[in-house]
């Protein structure tokens, strides 16, 4: 897994690629946690390069989503496609997470 963060229009855009599983989920959590602790409340997670997400990866996403929700922050996902989209749909994550077609659309969607 590779994870990169950048600031765009007052939000943190997180690019996640590769596999998000039991091995890599802790890094994902740590990175996002650090960003939230720095006071960033608006995040867009771009899953364009994500090939696979396991239940441990979903748990990581859930932890971050709940943390941001408790702090009154906003979290949007972009480019959720293929098997990842399928996993999101089956697990019901698609119904609780806000998913946009593109990063630009996600940024537009942030209030």
């Amino acid at each position, binding site marked *: 897994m590779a994870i990169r963060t950048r600031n765009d229009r007052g939000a943190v855009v997180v690019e996640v690629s590769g596999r998000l599983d039991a091995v890599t989920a802790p890094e994902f959590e740590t990175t996002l946690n650090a960003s939230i602790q720095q006071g960033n409340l608006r995040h867009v997670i771009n899953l364009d390069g994500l090939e696979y997400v396991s*239940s441990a990866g979903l748990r990581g996403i859930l932890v971050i989503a709940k943390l941001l929700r408790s702090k009154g922050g906003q979290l949007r996902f972009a480019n959720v496609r293929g098997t990842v989209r399928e996993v999101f749909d*089956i*697990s*019901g*994550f698609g*119904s609780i997470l806000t998913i946009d077609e593109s990063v630009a659309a996600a940024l537009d969607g942030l209030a």
Partner: protein
Amino acid sequence: MQLSLRAKMLVWFGGILGAMLVVFALVTYSSVQETVVGLTKDLAHEILKARSAEIGRLIHGYSSEVKTIADRDVMRSGDFDVIGKNLIERAHAINPDFEILFYTNNRGHFTTTMGAEGDVSDRDYFKAIMEQGQDDVISPPLLSKSTGERVFVVASVVRNDKGERVGIAAATVLLKRLSQITESISIGQGGTGWVADGNGTIVAHRDQNLPLKLNLLRSAASGYEGLDEIGRRIVAGQPGQGIFKRPDGTTQSAIFNPIPYTPGWTFGISVQQSELMKRPEVLMRQILLLMAAMLGTMLLVVTVLSRRITEPVRALQEGVASVRAGNLDSVIDVRTGDEIQALAEAFNRMTADLKDHIRNLQKVTAEKERVESDLRVANKIQAGMLPRVFPPFFDIEHVDLYATMEPAKEVGGDFFDFFLLDDHRLCFCIGDVSGKGVPAALFMVITMTILRNQAMHHKSLETVFNQANAMLCADNDESMFVTVFMGILDLDTGDLEYVSAGHNPPFISVGGAGFGRLAVQPGLVMGGMAGHEYRSSRTVMRPGDLLFLYTDGVTEAMNIRLEAFGEDLATQTLNGLMGQPVRAVIKGMRQAIDGFTQGAPVSDDVAMMAITLTGLPARGKRKAADKIDA
């Protein structure tokens, strides 16, 4: 090790020092020999020259004295008788070195201080003065015609007032006297002085057997070696030195110098070679003794020092051996105040640390064993929670159900469950807790318990899910969640109500057609977020239809190339098993997965469940019974 270290130090220090001392000794010896021996010889030669001159002056003195006598008036008168009387009168007053004084007339007739008379006209010295015109002559040694002693003659011409040669005044000097003089001259401790004449004949020597009897040139015949060569140089009138061997075998060093005022005489001294070398050898002996003492002291110091170094090393070695033998309480006591003590202290600290580490390791190992044993128990408990009796219902023959769960670790997060809600409603579920191991197993136990309870209490499957989700979300700090698929099958009608909480949709085969995904309303995983509203779906199962539930351990089983088994392969496998009993279907699926992974390590729990209806009871009969119950 101790011996070799000491031996090494001895060899290195002793060897190097010894070699240095030997080289130093050799250099010193050779330079001492060169210098001292050379100096000794030079000194000897100087002494010899002085002595030669002394002897020369002495003989010259004799000559002057005789000349004075020859110049006297009584001598010049030429009156033989008067001269004879005069000589006798003067006999008591002559130089004590002289044996006699004598006068010869021009015919060789002589008269002496002893009153003796005779003829010396045949003597060479007579001829030299009277016939060859020499004024002063010192004769070679000869036998005195008046006394018969070995003497040499000092002669001077006597002239009358007209200057005519009228006779000779002369003195005889005993060779014995010359020998006495030469004998008193020595070099160092030893040495023999001698005089040889111009023919190489020894004329004066301490050994009275030699004068006039040994000629240096013919010395080889008497058993001397190398003396003839010296003799040749003496006869040639050269000063010098040489080495020769006496008949008794001693090697002698001869130093010689011509005596002035003599007819080719040479004064020499023979010194035993060893005598000459005495001083340098004493010096050398002292140097060697000093060096031996230095070497000995050094070796002693090295020995003591090496022992002081090796003793603590040996103590250290013993300490290490003791620790190696398992005695971790062994303490090495070295107090040398140097690096070895530091090493010993470091070793003691290491031993102490080692002891701590071993204690910790034992503790950790014991802990691990305890945990492992706990896990084995937990595994049994978990396995015990899952239904194990197949076929499950004795009295209901038209439903067939089979399920398995294989955890990837000792305790897993996958589960399945089924139970009858009443006499015709079968509740079944399959689930997958996020994560693995003990946390997942604990969460699974909670989930199973809650689901069973809720299913027993609520008619609506949606309510069951909503309530269970609310309970799992409460105090779920770890954000664990579980995917659950649950269905309630009416065994009388085949009606099936089901809900999925984020779980993989089961496969179903309807009416003998191939397997396909069961259409589900996707719901959020349980425990994920409180307040989620679950929606149920409905379908009808006919006899022969088969419902296959599974967890993602099936579709995500990996081979060594990290390829997943996948839904397509799962569907194909199921289609291949169409019409088989549920147990055979699950076994077939298991074999297909094993064939695919080919021994690659299992990374996830695998749970599977298959349900089929073999028929339906007469609808009326069941309905009638319902009415009676009501």
